[in-house]
């Protein structure tokens, strides 16, 4: 008798565990030395490095198949269009959207959120209405809504977090009112690593008829994301944080909502007919894709999805969890080190401070050891304010990180402490 395993569990005796050493050889930049040391790249929440297959896909596009899309009858245009359309289908399958027309290509997560705020938001939010975000958002999921609220004389409300960095979901019921028009939340916090219970938030918001946008920038490289299972109305993410190209992002939106929204920008490709009297919008998703897009970058995103699919995103989840479980006690054991963000459900990110040592000094010393981490407020100043600190040092993980990387980090932090003792 056979047992059916849930799709996210590695099949027994099936898929081999992640062969990280082999994977690392596929990332050319990991062979680099920085200040004479092998590169230890732990700034993956800012951006990930690119595998050969993504670099090749982008280069190959320019070398062999480059032309503008949806324009010409010539071979190159047709090939480019095919490749571009295939990338959209890959994205659809990757997040399990119902239809490819629900996948809108944008420049990144930031543009995706701005698009929703400026179209859906401007249409639906009026004076005295409310937009709800959480206290752990990245600036890019705060400022677009502030711009909207300023324009419409609406109110931005904040769902609080607790001292561990968990969102206090139980407060949401009270926070939502009949004036709430949209809830916009991160899936994974870039500053703390908190995994936000998106499904529960969607359920609560939907029970009140309030749509939900999810900022998935930190989630898609680490977790299997199923937009229909989450039940969200919009889902935004960036290619460059998931091993793909910069300058490409995705907005998933339920077709019914996208259909009802006005265009974001005017230009080529987003229209079906133009006269000086009247212009008719193109169908989804093209209505939201004015101008020539980042064609090669989008092909690169498709290659990144292929790459992740081949490895199995569930293996990446397990690998990063293993590394976080390995790193957390090692770092916590260092006297004077404080981990910022200790949510029970946490992934990919390890933020910390050192008593008496500024994160910038930590970053400079580690860089001399070839260790790349991020120091600063991580574009989440309200989070820093909540914890009463100006900044943190943040190590963030990717599928190519190893326990040796963590050991180097721990040794580097020891060196920092010796230096500033």
């Amino acid at each position, binding site marked *: 008798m056979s047992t059916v395993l849930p799709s996210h569990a590695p099949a027994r005796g099936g898929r081999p565990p992640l062969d990280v050493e082999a994977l690392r050889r596929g990332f050319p930049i990991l062979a680099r030395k920085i200040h004479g040391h092998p590169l230890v790249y732990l700034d993956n929440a800012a951006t990930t490095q690119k595998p050969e297959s993504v670099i090749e896909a982008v280069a190959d596009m320019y070398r062999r198949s480059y032309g503008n899309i949806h324009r010409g009858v010539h071979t190159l245009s047709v090939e480019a269009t095919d490749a571009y359309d295939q990338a959209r289908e890959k994205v659809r399958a990757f997040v399990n959207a119902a239809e490819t027309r629900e996948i809108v290509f944008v420049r990144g997560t930031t543009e995706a959120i701005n698009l929703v705020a400026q179209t859906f938001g401007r249409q639906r939010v009026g004076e005295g209405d409310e937009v709800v975000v959480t206290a752990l958002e990245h*600036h890019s999921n705060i400022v677009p809504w502030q711009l909207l609220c300023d324009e419409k004389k609406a109110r931005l409300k904040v769902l609080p977090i607790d001292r561990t960095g968990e969102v206090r979901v139980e407060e949401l019921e009270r926070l939502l009112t009949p004036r709430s028009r949209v809830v916009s939340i991160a899936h994974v916090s870039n500053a703390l690593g908190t995994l936000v219970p998106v499904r529960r938030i969607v359920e609560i918001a939907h029970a009140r008829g309030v749509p939900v946008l999810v900022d998935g920038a930190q989630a898609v490289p680490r977790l299997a994301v199923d937009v229909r299972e989450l039940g969200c109305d919009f889902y935004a993410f960036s290619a460059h*944080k998931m091993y793909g190209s910069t300058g490409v992002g995705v907005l998933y939106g339920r077709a019914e909502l996208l259909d009802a929204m006005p265009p974001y920008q005017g230009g080529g490709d987003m229209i079906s007919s133009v006269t000086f009297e009247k212009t008719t919008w193109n169908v989804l998703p093209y209505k939201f894709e004015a101008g020539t897009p980042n064609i090669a970058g989008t092909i690169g995103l498709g290659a990144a999805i292929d790459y992740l699919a081949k490895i199995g995103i569930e293996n990446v989840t397990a690998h990063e969890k293993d590394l976080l479980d390995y790193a957390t006690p090692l770092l916590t054991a260092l006297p004077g080190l404080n981990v910022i963000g200790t949510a029970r459900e946490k992934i990919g990110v390890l933020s910390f401070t050192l008593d008496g040592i500024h994160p910038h000094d930590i970053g400079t010393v580690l860089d001399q050891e070839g260790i790349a981490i991020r120091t600063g407020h991580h574009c989440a100043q309200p989070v820093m304010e909540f914890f009463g600190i100006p900044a943190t040092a943040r190590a963030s993980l990717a599928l190519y990180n190893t326990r040796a990387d963590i050991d180097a980090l721990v040794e580097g932090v020891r060196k920092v402490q010796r230096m500033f003792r």
Partner: protein
Amino acid sequence: MGELRDLYQEVILDHSKGPRNFGELAGANRRAEGYNPLCGDRETVFVRLEDDVLKEVGFRGAGCAISTASASMMTESLKGKTRAEAEALFERFRDLITGQDRENKPGAPELGKLAVFSGVREFPVRIKCATLPWHTLKAALAGEDRTVSTELTEGPKAESGGA
């Protein structure tokens, strides 16, 4: 990039751990707040200015080793200087850490102890840490009641995105 020890010289570490003239300055008649959005650091500089002479200079705030040491050593080196002398010293200091002082400009003031900051030039992202207190001082002397930001000054741009 240079050696760490050139950046974090003993004198700098000493001042960062035990900053001089630290805390609100009693009798100050000039003050300004400085802000570095790259790290979120804030620093307040206080001056007691009499007859165009900086009688006393103090500062308050939490910053990195470079900005704390720079503020501490700035307060020491400015005591008793005229406003013009203070501004000339800042010019010289800025030239030092941005690597523009290779040939001595005639009439430039002596840097004295401040010369230990020469290692900063090899760490361009840290230039703003060293100049933050000086910009703040300048704002205080100008009597500007505002927050000065390092983003309006020299060096590479600070973060504004990238999560």
